């Protein structure tokens, strides 16, 4: 039963994460926190952090992590299979159509229509993570009293490094982890 749930959840994540990279993130958050009580918001943030620092697609990383926590190694295999299954079918079907009719106009249209929505959903998931970093909870609080200034400072530094100096995400992660540890030890 739990295996079927894992398979179906990650099948949906694989099926609806369109646009690559971070498009899977809001879907993972939806499935493993809201639909199923598999991870806490902090654990979700942890796996996004780990995924950022390890090779491999975010969805596969999350599938393995959630699968293992919920049902051990078999769970990880089932969740990963669920994640890859839709792609196997759709990619080969689309390749067939592409070679038959030469052109991806409709598919490109679907993608173009989706892009603004995907950006919005990544923004929403990103906002949850930012709120967690700043306030220790997933939605913005009414008053800004409990703000974690170390996090705010690191966020500002990291964003500046990314936007102004085109720093690599993995370097930003390593430095913010090191600076964070140092700051928390000092203050």
């Amino acid at each position, binding site marked *: 039963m739990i295996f079927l749930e894992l398979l179906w959840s990650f099948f949906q994540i694989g099926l609806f994460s*369109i646009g*690559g*990279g971070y498009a899977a993130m*809001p879907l993972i958050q*939806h499935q493993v926190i809201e639909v199923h009580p598999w991870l806490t918001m902090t654990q979700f943030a942890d796996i996004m*952090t780990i995924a*950022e620092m*390890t*090779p*491999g*697609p*975010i*969805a*596969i*990383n999350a599938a*393995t*992590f959630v699968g*293992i926590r919920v049902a051990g190694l078999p769970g*990880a*295999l089932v969740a990963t299979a669920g994640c890859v299954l*839709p*792609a*196997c079918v*759709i*990619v*080969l079907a*689309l*390749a067939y159509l592409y070679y038959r009719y030469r052109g*991806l*106009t*409709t598919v490109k249209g*679907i*993608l*173009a*229509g*989706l*892009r*603004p*929505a*995907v*950006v*919005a*959903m*990544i923004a929403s998931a*990103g906002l949850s993570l*930012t709120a967690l*970093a700043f306030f220790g909870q997933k939605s913005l609080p009414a008053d800004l009293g409990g703000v*974690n200034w*170390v*996090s705010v400072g*690191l*966020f500002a530094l990291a964003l500046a490094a990314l*936007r102004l100096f085109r720093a*690599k995400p993995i370097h*930003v992660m390593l430095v*913010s*982890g090191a600076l*964070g*540890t140092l700051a*928390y030890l000092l203050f």
Partner: protein
Amino acid sequence: MNREKGVYWKLFSSTFRLSAGTFGGGFVIVPLMRERFVKELGWIEEREMLDLIAIAESCPGAIAVNASILVGYHVAGCAGALLTVLGTVLPPLVIISAISCFYSAVRDNALVNMAMNGMLAGVAAVICDVVLTMGREVLGEKRLMPPVIMLLSFLAVRVWNVNIILVILVCGLAGAAGTLRRAGKGVRRHDLS
């Protein structure tokens, strides 16, 4: 027979090595796959590879996985696709499994907690950077609809708690309808001239 075995092994080992050594997601790994299969091995023509990448980026799911399926299938059929998917999926599967073993034991450690908190601020910044870059592309199209869709989707997911999959389906259908309508108009104009 021997040559075939060599092809299978090379498919698997190439995708495995690329997947294990590449940080930064699909848009980083795809050019490296092109380097390996087009230039080094010469199994796929440049033009063909560009087509495969276009298909991989148009499909749902991780781009690295999609591209590896197409490369594997192109070179050695279904068995090839299976091997390249395994090669791409195994490294993260093994790495995250290993990390999961330590995770529960180490997560409550004060130092680990400090580092994770620091890195969480970093992740938030990385995602903020991604959203800013993608958002600017959407606004840069200088059309009315994309920003409106962006705002409505954000409100739908964040404020109105609409199911995220429903939002994706509606926006995808709207995009398809828009393309078909434009294509239809194009044909009619062509007929008149």
